[in-house]
């Protein structure tokens, strides 16, 4: 077992078979141009780079190089497809344990690097590129905001290792002045606080969840199931538009809709 997750890399390799590797990016980014059926796509994954120049970003965290590198990888697509009627889709393969926590990162403005990534994904979406987030591992906090959360559609694989959250348990306990045990008890009864993917799905933020046979090392059948789902998601975006409104509507997120409706009435 390695100390970091290999899921993102394994899914990237499995989905991008035959795709052309994009060079000129940080080693912690795997990026390739290929096809899903007829649809041209760019696959993007953040992966662990044990030799990362920034020591706090060696386990697949999204740090300075990763944030700005993601921005560059997405900007290239926006620019290249500017005058094309058919826009390439962006597939963000998400397996990110956290943002990088470190002195260098804060000093050099990691918030700005992550803003660079979020900005590019959002602009790609507005320019008509279908952006799909595929959650195969952790999707944590700032790392997820930079890589995945601006997607038109989010798809998660059903597995205990796939989780979305705002902060790791130890830190969340410290900041909210609770013990980890207390935090876990609360998380079990308050859906937005839970770490598991079913609770997350109940918030209405996922477009689809999928079961696979071997999440660590996807089989051919797993790859074809996921490919089909990604293709359907791209089609759904083409049909229903480029904003994030499909995330609203779940009963566990009713207040988000209610607030918007009241604002509109009073605007």
């Amino acid at each position: 077992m390695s100390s970091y997750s290999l899921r993102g890399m394994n899914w990237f390799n499995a989905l991008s078979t035959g795709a052309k590797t994009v060079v000129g990016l940080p080693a912690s980014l795997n990026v390739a141009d290929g096809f899903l059926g007829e649809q041209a796509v760019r696959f993007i994954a953040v992966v662990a780079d044990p030799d990362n120049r920034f020591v706090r970003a060696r386990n697949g965290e999204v740090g300075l190089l990763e944030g700005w590198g993601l921005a560059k990888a997405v900007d290239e697509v926006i620019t290249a497809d500017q005058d094309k009627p058919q826009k390439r889709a962006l597939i963000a393969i998400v397996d990110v344990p956290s943002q990088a926590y470190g002195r260098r990162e804060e000093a050099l403005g990691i918030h700005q690097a992550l803003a660079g990534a979020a900005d590019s994904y959002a602009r790609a979406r507005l320019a008509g590129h279908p952006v799909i987030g595929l959650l195969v591992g952790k999707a944590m906090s700032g790392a997820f905001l930079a890589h995945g959360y601006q997607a038109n559609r989010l798809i998660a694989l059903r597995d205990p290792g796939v989780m979305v959250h705002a902060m790791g348990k130890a830190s969340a306990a410290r900041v909210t002045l609770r013990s980890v045990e207390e935090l876990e008890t609360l998380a079990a009864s308050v859906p937005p606080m839970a770490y598991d993917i079913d609770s997350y799905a109940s918030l209405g933020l996922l477009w689809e969840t999928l079961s696979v046979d071997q999440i660590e090392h996807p089989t051919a059948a797993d790859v074809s199931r996921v490919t089909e789902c990604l293709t359907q998601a791209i089609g759904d975006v083409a049909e229903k538009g480029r904003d994030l409104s499909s995330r609203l509507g779940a009963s566990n997120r009713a207040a988000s809709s209610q607030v918007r409706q009241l604002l509109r009435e009073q605007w």
Partner: protein
Amino acid sequence: MTDSAALLHKHSFVELGARQRAKALLDAGTFRELLDPFQRVMSPWLSRQGVVPQADDGVVIAKGSLDGKPVVIAAIEGAFQGGSLGEVGGAKIAGALELAAEDNRKGIPTRAVLLLETGGVRLQEANLGLAAIADIHAAIVDLRQYQPVVGVIAGSVGCFGGMSIAAGLCSYLVVTQEARLGLNGPQVIEQEAGLEEYDSRDRPFIWSLTGGEQRFATGLVDRYAEDDVAQIRQQVGELLKQGLPANQRSGQAELYLQRLARLDAEPQIEPATVRDLYQGARS
């Protein structure tokens, strides 16, 4: 004026609450609050966790005019739950920005000002706070196509977590000496990386890296203002008047990658190193 006379004429912005701040920036008599506290749209998640909710969920949305032109202000109340964003407060900001973008598509030139005093996601509403912040990011990028979005970080809470990314998406940022801007709060970095890496109790150290003065000197913000209502109002007015920036800071990946490539990342970093590396970053 003598120093004491100047002090008497100065009105602190930092000491104002969110509602007063919004009022202070808008043209006199134009403040109109949306979803005000009397409508009691509160967090559905806090009371079951033993936290008393607040009638405005810590976010004030105000419409009005600034220098005679339409603007919407979203002000976060740093005194409530550390300015953290939950489902309702987050939806208020995202929803207001979405409507401002819609205004522009209909020919109404509504601008936006964000008054940011926030630790980021409210952990009691974790994933709904995170989702709301993603919506806020999306809405800033959308609105920014038409009109500037100005962020003000006055202090004393500062701006952290997912909302620091929102700050990084703004067209322009104004800070004071009291302000801090960073992704991760000092406590969390210490928890994750250790005391050696980041001492959360060492205030001078933290301000030297993430404080308003340093952020201005390194070009990561656009304006450095005194803690004075009139001065902050003037700076915000000037920036709104400037219109869209020629180069959006968050759109400069190539430039920042080149700068980072020049850095020797081996030794632990000093504030002066960042100043040297990013010098000339301000456009």
